[in-house]
């Protein structure tokens, strides 16, 4: 994943210099001028979504756009391209949508960046960037509620005796990377079984077909009492009460892996950023205000999101995350792509 890994912070910011400069001016003058705001946007924002209508990303998009539309004074029109784990959406966005700041992409950074680690897209990765993160949902390890494995140490001990079958949403997923990192650290053997989606991943653990499963914790919380969480791949277990006070990976195993998150974010053509810095600045500014608006958390909760996971991120945060996850993905690429 050279595009993110090899791109220094300085380079990245230089590439988006236009927008950064505008943003600076915006800060200096206390906001976008009303003239700019009046001219952009003058019609609906089109958003390419890499998942199905009604899914988690769609609901998050609806929640954030319900607030953002008031700041931009326009509506958001989603178009869903769920094919190939989000690949179709990115290809459609980069290949068929005009780079004019009216066209945005809403995706799930973690799995989609790992997709690119396993197989590069047809477009140049340098031509795309994320700029607005909505939330960060950490991945976790969980078992069925009445499992004989009570702690992560039980799982690791068993994994040293025999290879354990681990349900995962798909191979190229931050949760898969997380459990492979546990295996690397402890010597336990884990056999990743992709179960095509969070619903099936929960079912895999609950029905006992899998020894355990790994998934984003928001979906695990939604499964309620049917499951028990044993480990969280984050610096802190923010939702400890709902995740059985499970320990975090780095605390428990003394590792130093970055948080493994499902991070939903808006992306945009770099060409649009360079061509229309004023528009992009307005998007950045209003997006930040929307996520930090008191009305957003209730809207997000109503959309089945976990408000505690709302975590605004701008260009820099998205870049850092992209760099970390792709670096980790590259480390386990052979296992994720079956070439081990």
């Amino acid at each position, binding site marked *: 994943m050279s595009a993110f890994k090899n791109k220094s912070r300085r380079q990245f910011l230089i590439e988006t210099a236009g927008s950064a400069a505008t943003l600076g001016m915006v800060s200096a003058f206390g906001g976008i001028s009303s003239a700019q705001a009046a001219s952009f946007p003058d019609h609906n924002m089109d958003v390419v979504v890499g998942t199905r209508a009604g899914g988690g990303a769609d609901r998050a998009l609806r929640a954030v756009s319900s607030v953002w539309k008031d700041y931009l004074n326009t509506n958001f029109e989603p178009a869903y391209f769920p094919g*190939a784990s989000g690949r179709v959406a990115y290809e459609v966005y980069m290949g068929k949508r005009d780079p004019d700041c009216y066209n945005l992409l809403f995706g799930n950074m973690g799995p989609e960046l790992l997709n690119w680690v396993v197989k590069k897209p047809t477009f140049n990765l340098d031509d795309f960037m994320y700029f607005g993160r909505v939330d960060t949902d950490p991945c976790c390890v969980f078992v069925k509620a009445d499992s004989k494995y009570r702690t992560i140490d039980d799982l690791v001990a068993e994994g040293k005796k025999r290879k354990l079958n681990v349900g995962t949403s798909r191979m190229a997923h931050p949760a898969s990377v997380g459990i492979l990192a546990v295996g690397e650290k402890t010597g336990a053997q884990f056999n990743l079984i992709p179960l095509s989606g969070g619903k099936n991943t929960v079912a895999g653990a609950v029905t006992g*077909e899998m020894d355990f499963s790994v998934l984003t914790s928001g979906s695990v919380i939604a499964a309620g009492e049917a499951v028990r969480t044993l480990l969280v791949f984050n610096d802190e277990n923010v939702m400890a009460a709902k995740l059985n006070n499970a320990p975090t990976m780095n605390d428990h195993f003394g590792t130093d892996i970055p948080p493994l998150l499902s991070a939903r974010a808006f992306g945009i053509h770099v060409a649009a950023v360079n061509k229309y810095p004023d528009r992009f600045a307005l998007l950045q500014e209003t997006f930040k205000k929307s996520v930090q608006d008191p009305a957003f958390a209730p809207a997000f909760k109503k959309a089945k999101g976990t408000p505690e996971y709302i975590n605004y991120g701008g260009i820099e945060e998205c870049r850092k995350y992209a760099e970390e996850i792709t670096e980790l993905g590259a480390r386990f690429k052979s296992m994720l792509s079956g070439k081990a």
Partner: protein
Amino acid sequence: MEIDLLFFINLFLDTLSYWWVIVPSIFLGLIVGAIPGFSAANTIIILLPFTLIMEVEVGLIFMIALYSSSRMGAGIPAILVNIPGTAGAAATPLDGYPMTKSGRGQQALAISFVSSTLGGLLTTVLAIAAMPILAKVGFYMHSVEMVVVMLFGISLIASIAAKDTLKGLIAGFFGLMIGSIGADHVYATPRGTFGFLEFYDGVPLIPALVGLFAVSEALLVIEGESVLVKKKQIEEDHSSWNETIIGMKIAFKHWWHITWNSLIGLVVGVIPGAGASIASFVAYQQSRTYSKTPELYGTGHPPGLIAPESANNGVTSGTLIPLLVLGIPGGATAAIMMVVLQYQGVNTGPRLFLDNPTLGYGVFMAMFVTYLFMLLTIMPLSRYMSRVTLISTVYMSPLIISFTLIGSYVPRTYMFDMYLAFAFGIIGYIARKTGYHVAAILIGVILGPLLEQYMLRALKMSDGDVMVLFRSDLANVLWIVLVVTLSFPYIMKKFRSRKDTPPDKPEGQENVFAKD
């Protein structure tokens, strides 16, 4: 709260009072079910903002009624114009459409409505009565067991091939090959996509379904003046309520058939990830296998229509069981229902029936009442719906093609899918003209990827050890049933031919067997 007979009577009466939600939802469900590409799931998504602001009971009843009736609605175009509205109705036209072509469309609709409603009613009652047990089915039906279940459905190809072995098998393998297009189920490596990103998730079902069945049919019927021959047109034009009554009588006469096949649907529906398409093909295969007249299947034989219709309605209540009892949605519509419930602060799972039994059992009661209303409201429509077949093909064919192409576009909103439906239409047309069975192709397209998915998962779990397919007791039982099922027609054939042997056979031969 005590869960006794009085509780259910009160619940029933309370649900009846929501007739003003149920009846419009039934008609909406019929419409969206009948249009290829639309479904209860995407309709609920479209109407999500309205559903969320409704009271939780109203929203839930609306969704249940829509879901149940859309299943029945999908069968209507499958019977009348050979267009299955969803993959779950893919087995319906196998005998439903030949009935229509022979001027028995009204009868076929009545059979379908009775089978669907009785199947739905029966499985709903069973779901209420045996929910804790049924919820456990998913705990035993794992990938290995599902491989065998898939083989039940896929073995239909062999049945179809029985009439013309070579052509039947070629069609079946062609379907399986098409089904293997797309990213593999483990490492997502693209195969046979011809460079099209749109194929990464495999061949989309709706374009394949409507192309093979509907577009090819539209191209065929345009060669004639009407779907029906002249004589049948006159009969259909003068058909009376009697046809509906005959259809109802046929269906009621096969009550055991409805019971058995709706149970298949219920069990398949309970398994997370399995769905109506699997249930309807497995039911059709089982029905044909144990029939005394298997040769009549595919010619407009009522049991061939009853089987898939009662099975796919049995799935409806089955998919809700894991959602309500375990908190795991059994299908796409159930997943959306979960979103709505959680939005309303209702958590599904084991505690639902303890914390809020009225709501938990109310879901199934809503389904029960919906099916009752469906029987009363939809049955009279059979007479008028069947008149569709009288429309001249000059208008009918373009209408079919337009509707199906739009239907192909809807699920993914890809123009590509419209072209694909047309391409499948051409394939279907050529197949029909040359005597290849499109149903065999479709079985491969629908069940092939599912078989592959379960097989690869089982093999991945066992590190590639094929013997994993025989290590589970339940799977072994299923293997035995499969072998019995496949050999049963041949055994029966042998048995009957022996029974029919004229008594005046040469004595010498009889003596030889006697000595044995």
